[in-house]
């Protein structure tokens, strides 16, 4: 029973995070970051 509750707790937590992330405009920030070349990610600069 405990196992089941933990599963659903994390599913709802994930959904909660996604909804609030959308509400706070994180997707726009993510789009801005991910559509630019990240020199650090490449190990350059």
């Amino acid at each position, binding site marked *: 029973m405990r196992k089941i509750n933990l*599963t659903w707790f994390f*599913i709802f*937590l*994930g959904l909660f995070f*996604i909804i609030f*992330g959308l509400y706070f405009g*994180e997707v726009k920030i993510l789009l801005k970051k991910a559509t630019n070349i*990240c020199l*650090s990610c490449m*190990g350059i600069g």
Partner: protein
Amino acid sequence: MRRRIQFLWLFFNNGYWAFLGKEKIYTGPLKAFCAPGLNCYSCPAATLSCPIGAIQHFLSELRFNWHNSIYVFGIYVLGTMIIIGAFVGRMACGWACPFGLLQEIIFKLPTRKFPLPKYFSLFKYAILLFFVFLLPILIIDKMGYGEVWFCRYLCPVGTLEAGLPLLILIPSLKQQITWVFYHKLIILSIFLIMTIFFKRPFCHILCPLGAFYGLFNHFSLFQMHVDKTKCKKCDICYKYCPMGIKIYENPNQLDCLRCLTCYNVCPEKAISLTFGTHHTMLLKDKHHI
């Protein structure tokens, strides 16, 4: 079937081939979604965002001051990772990670193979905690910004998928190369050489995304079960497992990729799969997945 899905994800994750003519990376709306596997979003062909890179970028830009505060934690990215983990655990590593696919292909080279010590697996949890979550927040420069520690200093995927192709595509970037690039090139080379002799060494030792998903293996909706009355511990599952684990010791252990190879090769049909809280059989009649 798994190999086909791995290739499908590889081409979907890296499906923007117009970069060859335009000399710039994909900037479309798909980048708003996180890739299930580790796939650098600076790769010129990448269509999705890397969750590990994205979360570090968010955390590195957290600023707790009065004048110019930024309190965006990256909970959208974290939520996506939690949802994937809570549904299928580490299955994304076995089915949708391009670097995992590359390692499995290289491992097929006919040489002598060796097992990796079990305690090596613990290292990736330290990487997840320090390089992904703590260091980007705690160590900041004069401007108040942190760094993407894992991407910058450790991630061989970024070097392979983004660094090398973009250096070929945009030669002017060569002027910006520092020691970090050579350091990462060495890490990439070490892991590619290790891959010839060891099963998926990057996934075992370094991958923070695999470490994160693995934490959910015990209580994800998708579960694996071993019928101990049927299992004869013949170790065929161990022989074929891409991570070299013994599924009968613990069917939902942290390093299991849920690739279902063991399920397919078990001669005793001792492994079963369930999805959902009612523990109903997912596939009653065995057929190859």
